[in-house]
């Protein structure tokens, strides 16, 4: 019962949305791209898209900064 976020294994939580996962990971940076098993999740779907067990999540933070 785990998922992989940016190559690091963490516990899977049932019915966890993308928004909640970002909150759990403390990913507050606004310019992020989220992919679940290589498929992009639209920002407008972050609240409703539920993370499946065993999935591979990429939360790509754009560079910005500096």
């Amino acid at each position, binding site marked *: 019962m785990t998922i992989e976020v*940016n*190559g*690091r294994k963490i516990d899977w939580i049932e019915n966890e949305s993308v928004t909640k996962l970002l909150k759990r990971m*403390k*990913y*507050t*940076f*606004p*310019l992020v*791209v989220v992919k679940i098993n290589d498929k*992009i999740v639209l920002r407008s779907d972050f609240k409703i898209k539920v993370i499946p067990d065993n999935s591979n999540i*990429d*939360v*790509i*933070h*754009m*560079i*910005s*900064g*500096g």
Partner: protein
Amino acid sequence: MLEGQIPIEDYESGNTKNKWNLNKIKLEHKTISEYNYIKKDIQKGYANRTLYINLNEGIIKEKKVTEDMKKLFTGGRGFGLKLLWDSIKSNTRWNSNENELIITTGPLCGTTQYPGSGKSLCLTISPSTDIICDSNVGGFFGPYLKFAGFDAVEIQGKAKEDVIIIIDGEKGKISIETAPLEETNSHMISQQLTQMYSSEDDDKSRQKISIVSAGMGAENSYWGCLNFSFYDIRRKIPRLKQAGRGGLGTVLRDKKIKAILTKVEKFDGVSNNPADSVTLAKVGTKLHREIRDLDRYQCNMRAVGTVHLVEIMDEYDLLPTENYRFGSFPKASKLYSQNFYKLFTKIIPDGCWHGCTMACAKTVDHFTVMTGPYKGEKVTVDGPEYETVGCGSNMSIWDPLWVLEFNFYCDTYGLDTISTGTSIAFYMEMYEYGILNKKRCDGIELCFGNAEAVLEVIHRIASGDKGEFISIASKGIRRVKDWLIKNNWGDIGIIEDCGMESKGLEYSEYVTKESLAMQGGYGLTLKGPQHDEAWLIFMDMVNNSIPTFKDKAEALHYFPMWRTWFGLNGLCKLPWNDVEPSNNPKTDDPSKVPEHVQNYVDYQNAVTGWNVDKEELILQSERCYNWQRAMNVWLGRGSRKDDWIPYRSMGPVTVMEYISRRERYDKYLNEKIGISEGKIEKMKIEEKIKIIYDYRQDQYQKLSDAVYYRRGWTPNGVPTPNKMKKLGFTDPKMLKILKDKIITDEKAGLNIWGGKYNNKEKNPNDGIKYW
């Protein structure tokens, strides 16, 4: 006028009004030298000449910009490097007579159709590093210098008494005049000269003037910045942007220049005479719309500027606190952007050059100064930007109003906030350990959080205080380290590891302990640890998208080259990736923002009439980047030993730091270094620190190996003659310097890889001597 914007006539800044007898001040001017020139139109982004001024002999002359110079050096910083190469010697230091202060523009500089197109690039031999320092800055000076007729101005020699240089694009005349009565501090002299030299007594005329100055702090420290003015017709004052890093302002004052003024007759959207104004307008309009529609959902630059980063850096453990010991702090929310948003003057456009819709140059008007010579006066504070707020957290000072006070005084005194803040944070840590104390600090209790003490240090520096501590402290961390070690006041390891400088320049405000790539982004740089070459923390530490040395080296090739390009053209990097098109996530390489890269290809072609592609943009940078490294080699630096970084930027120096992130480091020992959990449990903290210390030092050397190889440099970090020839350089003097250095390194056994490779690992080139 945009919706919600305040009409010019309705806004009153509430600032204290200064009254000077400007006629009396001007009457004291004596003309030292004058030069009349023929005014010419700009051709496809280039004025096609530069301006040379020698203050020793009062020489003023024009230099032609050749097609070969454009081909090899593009413009901006590239032109600066070429001019320096032709004028200085290998033993030139910051205060040598032949050292130059150069301000450049770039072929795209001064465009009003595309956001972020008003940057100047300034270069000199830095007092902090003894090598070339380049620093970019907004404000009107760069565009006006070009529209007055010059792609760059280079100033050599020193005046005998305080002078101002006037580049009058209205009359086609350059003059050097003595200026004994003008104020030195920037917020004052920029007002005086703007009023004194405007053609008419109205705001439109005042807007056609821009002034470069540095204050009393620049005169008495190595942290001098240059202030570039831009007249704000609503606030009715010249506001200031800074070329902060490396002591450019110190060099300005060493040459006894109080100010450089440039003035234009007129300018408009086609002053650059672009080759294809239709494409230029099309590309610009697209980005304007993007910023208008998306910024509020992305970085919110239009509302709070770069300060939006404070809360993000705090959340990701990257906000430096207590001299980079920690990356977040319980009190940090006091400095979050919302607290500055409350103080910023709103609904006034805040671009530092015309046409910049990103408009991130925020201000606080009618701020009441709390200390020092201007106590009680009401002033406009330009900023703060993220880095200046980061200085507050780094010194453990959590009061937004104090940050404004620090910001105001650093600016008007001409002190770089980054070097000032980072240095004082180090002195504070040394104070905490007893290596410094009240006596050694000339009576100042310089402990973390002592806001009054910091301001006292700054005021004493600006007043020219000759106390031993102030005299040394004002020269920055490297000199203070040497002073502490010489006096045997503390452990050399602690002093070297905690002082956040590399090459003699102080770090900017990001914690890099958990990002090896960003350690390289600070250490494997040309001028020293400034984040303008690469900002890779998210790619590396958070996204985990560049896991191998080869990946990191590729990023440390591409991004420094890409970011260098902005400085060759007179552009700001913020509109590249601080706003992104809505379809960016679907592109092949979102971190590069491909659509915006293509914008820049179209933009450069539209102005210059060239036919370049995105690969050529990188080549333009690669030429200049390698040339600057080669010049560093010539100046006696620019090899592996010079890319050393302090251990505080790699990992925990002290037991307290380790304990504060114990879970993280214990996990690191287990997962990365392979020590069993049982063994870790039994180890002392000091033992754990030592193991991580050795491991991470080796990781940094391996990273350096991979980066040098990727960049086509020797294992000692020297660009090879072959690499230079491939980039198009044929200068026999430079090629010989590099060849001789490589032979010397070979004899000294320095052409070897720095990492310790075991049987399973390979060094970057597997033993082949390509150099």
